[in-house]
């Protein structure tokens, strides 16, 4: 590649970076600006909306509940999906397409339709088991299935799963050891991708919680917005920044410190692309 062509390419990359950066940061900057306005037109800048986050009734509980839901959903998703995918790939490869179809199906069903389906189940759960908001994690696992499936699928595709598993088995490892000591350590970026996507999706979820009468972070933001627009926007900015921070972590953490094979690199690239697009859909679509 000639020097001038390389320079032009760099300029083009920089231009794309600036435009895309402005596209993402512009609205957040505007929200931040709004959240620091005073009560009147000429009032000085104030952080009162931000300091009110800690004192607004119910908001702290909603934040904690959403973080708990995010953590529980991620763990449940991993415990449910990863062993299933490994087992199907090893023992029932003919079911691979079926599992993929099932996992991707929630993408095609609108959230409102899912809630209608869930409602009778949650009524029963509320009466007979628990009325805790943490029960929402059951439906959130289904919500995050398509994104986590894609991330884990990319990770598993980069492994010679059959050979590694059989090697471990022949060395005396049981299935639990194979999962925890051979498979999981060899796909850290895929697992991180899947987990962080789940966290981002759960933190941004509104429809399920609102229609099932639970107060998570997004529902609380909506309520606060009725009485204090500034605080509502401040919380929204904080949650967006938190989600972006997670996605940034996803891009930089989990990269092997040593040179990796082409297959691994392909995996990382694929995983990152899936996760970023999934994250954005999660923030805007649900």
């Amino acid at each position: 590649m000639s020097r001038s062509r390389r320079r032009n390419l760099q300029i083009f990359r920089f231009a794309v970076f600036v435009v895309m950066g402005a596209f993402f940061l512009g609205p957040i900057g505007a929200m931040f600006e709004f959240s620091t306005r005073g009560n009147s037109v000429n009032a000085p800048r104030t952080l009162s909306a931000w300091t009110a986050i800690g004192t607004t009734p119910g908001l702290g509980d909603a934040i904690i509940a959403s973080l708990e839901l995010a953590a529980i959903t991620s763990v449940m998703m991993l415990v449910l999906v990863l062993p299933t995918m490994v087992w199907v790939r090893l023992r029932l490869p003919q079911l691979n397409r079926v599992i993929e179809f099932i996992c991707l199906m929630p993408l095609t069903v609108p959230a409102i339709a899912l809630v209608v389906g869930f409602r009778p189940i949650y009524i029963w759960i509320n009466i007979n088991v628990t009325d805790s908001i943490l029960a929402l994690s059951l439906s959130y696992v289904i919500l995050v299935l398509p994104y986590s499936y894609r991330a884990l699928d990319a990770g598993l595709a980069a492994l010679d799963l059959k050979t590694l598993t059989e090697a471990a088995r022949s060395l005396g490892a049981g299935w639990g050891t194979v999962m925890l000591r051979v498979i999981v350590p060899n796909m850290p970026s895929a697992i991180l991708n899947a987990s962080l996507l789940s966290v981002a999706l759960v933190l941004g979820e509104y429809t399920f919680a609102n229609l099932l009468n639970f107060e998570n972070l997004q529902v609380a933001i909506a309520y606060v917005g009725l009485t204090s627009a500034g605080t509502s926007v401040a919380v929204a900015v904080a949650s967006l920044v938190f989600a972006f921070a997670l996605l940034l972590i996803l891009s930089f953490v989990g990269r092997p410190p040593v040179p990796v094979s082409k297959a691994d690199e392909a995996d990382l690239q694929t995983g990152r692309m899936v996760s970023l697009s999934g994250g954005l859909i999660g923030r805007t679509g649900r």
Partner: protein
Amino acid sequence: MTADGSAGRSGVEVRLEDLTRKYATTTALDRLTLTLAPGELVALLGPSGCGKTTALRLLAGLEEADSGRVVIDGEDVTNVPANRRNIGMVFQAYSLFPHMTARKNVEFGLQMQHVGPAERRDRATEVLDLVGLSMHANKFAHQMSGGQQQRVALARALAIRPRVLLLDEPLSALDAKVRARLRDEIRRVQMEVGITTLFVTHDQEEALAIADRVGVMQSGHLEQLGPPTEVYSRPATPFVADFVGLTNRIKGVVRDGSVDVRGESIPLVHPDVEDGPATALIRPEAVSLATNGDLADGPLVGTVIAVAFLGATSRVTVDLGDTTVLAQMPTSAATLLKAGTKVRLAMRTDPVLVQREEPATTTP
């Protein structure tokens, strides 16, 4: 590895009895019976899909047999899961755990056996020494060559002191030179440890070079099992003759326990064949060529078509008019031969097999 068997005990007997394995409509293994003597290395040789890998996987416990038994050291392990069979295995694909160093890979099996850290370290060092890789103990798989990875895999398999060692085409992903070197190394280690070993390969040279006995398989059956020299020089079936080494197929007539091939009488491996037309299967090295003497037209006089230089030996293709014949000879003897040279064939009178079918040309 020490004589007291620090990487293994003295070998044990392994028996595969009437093993059958079917996949949907195909029978991968059809009542296979095979016994490995203690400390013996048996190579299963055959084309893709002949069932050799299935046999090895059934022995490893990685697949379940539809019927039959697997007996190791007198113990029926047919229903014992793979992780409780204490069998070491080296795979065709590179199977080192990518997130572990060579040493950690070797220690993995020992951890599964709850061996203490100090002993684990000692034993890992010992087996890595055995395969000549103690200098690379702290390297990850991606920092090693294919040959080194397979040697670590061998060390890892031996570290657990397995009762049986299984090698599933461990050399097929390597280049020719490394393959030959590692093949000899595997044999050296196997003999040093004295472990009963089943080696699966589709490479006849590999099987003949490494094994105490070679089993040639086809369509789930064991066609012949015997020492390499016997399998090569006295093939039991036309398939074995075809598959192991090159074979000329020349039309002839069976008469009184020998076959008449273009005027030459050659004894048969199985003299009880009925008289009549047949195809004789003759090794290229049993054919010699003369460029002097009577070169007048006759059934054994032909023209050289090509000379292939193979190093110490050369392979000459001769056109006899109605068929072509391969002759293999020392390169020094083949230097005078060029395409177009007239030659007279002579055939060594080693016993040969015959096949009752339409003769074809030489098959590789």
